[in-house]
């Protein structure tokens, strides 16, 4: 472990009491943003994220259009009041630009783009409160928003991060773990085929550790996929319950 004096893992327990394989609790609420084609609000541990999807609509400015298929544009941004520390710098920084790009790329793999030539699909992810793993939360939340918008997709992506403390692999790093762990690896998965649509890593990891980490991601994915589906279905089943 990095020599920080902070013990992230002691007797198999993490600072917040989780075991290495535990993820934080997740809550998803469908369609909070009425003007959007589809939207979702998500609480993932202390993270609070809202995602909304607009389109497809005519790609503007015109030079961004692709005559053969739709283009996906994403903007991920953190609110200046979202962190436990001071006031955040306003606007799109380099980190936000990169996360926006890799998020858009996840959806390029699943949205049936050639049905909408010349158009754009906009994904907006706003992080209202952050506690580590916001890009994973954003992607997972945006997938629900995309499905609710009715844009056809071949899969429902989810994302989660894994990391390493000493020689132990831990799932779903929170902010403090993110800051002090020996490796951090956010992953997005297309669950129908278990293919990897986003992979970033910084730190040190052996191949065996990577394989362990991936297995942890796929196991957690079953739970996340179920939560996404439950959120989507709640949109229809609650109305159903109301009238028997």
């Amino acid at each position: 472990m990095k020599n920080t004096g902070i013990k992230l893992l002691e007797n198999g327990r993490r600072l917040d009491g989780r075991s290495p394989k535990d993820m934080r609790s997740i809550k998803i609420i469908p369609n909070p943003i009425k003007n959007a084609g589809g939207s979702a609000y998500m609480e993932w541990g202390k993270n609070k994220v809202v995602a909304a999807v607009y389109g497809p609509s005519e790609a503007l400015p015109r030079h961004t259009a692709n005559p053969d298929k739709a283009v996906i544009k994403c903007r991920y941004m953190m609110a200046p009041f979202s962190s436990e520390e001071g006031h955040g710098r306003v606007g799109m920084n380099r980190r936000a630009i990169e996360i926006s790009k890799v998020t858009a790329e996840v959806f390029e793999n699943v949205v049936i783009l050639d049905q909408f030539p010349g158009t754009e699909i906009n994904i907006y992810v706003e992080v209202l409160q952050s506690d580590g793993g916001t890009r994973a939360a954003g992607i997972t939340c945006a997938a629900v928003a995309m499905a609710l918008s009715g844009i056809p997709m071949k899969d429902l992506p989810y994302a989660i991060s894994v990391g390493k403390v000493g020689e132990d692999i831990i799932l779903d790093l929170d902010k403090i773990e993110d800051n002090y762990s020996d490796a951090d690896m956010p992953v997005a998965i297309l669950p129908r085929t278990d293919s990897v649509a986003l992979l970033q890593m910084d730190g040190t990891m052996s191949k065996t550790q990577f394989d362990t980490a991936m297995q942890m991601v796929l196991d957690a994915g079953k739970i996340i996929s179920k939560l996404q589906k439950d959120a989507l279905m709640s949109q229809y089943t609650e109305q159903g319950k109301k009238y028997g």
Partner: protein
Amino acid sequence: MKRIVVPGEMVDDKPLHLLDAFIEENKTYATVISVYDDEKKMLTPLEGLWYPRKEEVVVGVIEEAKLNTYTVQLNAPYKGIIISKYTESAMNTGDMIEASVKELDKTGTVVLSRPRVLNGGKLLKIRPAKVHRLIGKSNTMLNQISQGTGTTMKVGMNGVVWIRGGDIDLASEAVFRVQEEAHVSGLTERINKMVGSPVQVQK
């Protein structure tokens, strides 16, 4: 058995040619949130966008009057165009119109024909996947709402509804209620209760 499926979820382990689904390795998967009835092999989308089909009626708003064409906003991925020489009278920007789909051209523009200006009233945008429910079997739902509220209504397959006259607010409420409860049985009775039955039978 009916069940809700989400994008990427297997609908059937055999290859079935269904709208809103795709086949991979001889299995069928959903592309939008839908209800699948595995006895009837029927996939009914709960969400979805509008795909223009020939002869379909749409409702939209004139966006721009150009030299030879009008462009039309359709609340859809595509814009509509109307070729001016096929229109009987001039139309203005902002005019609400009803028209039918002539064709979808290569650039993704919907060519419209037989435009008719809809005077006054207002438009409602609804989810295109709910349009069929709003119209109902041989127009029953639509007639019920429009007669019960004394309004004139036009429903575009693109998910735009035009309403004028009568109790517009009640009619709008009923339209949105159909949208929200489209998949819940007993809807006709609930709408009936809301707007009143169009034909009062004396006992």
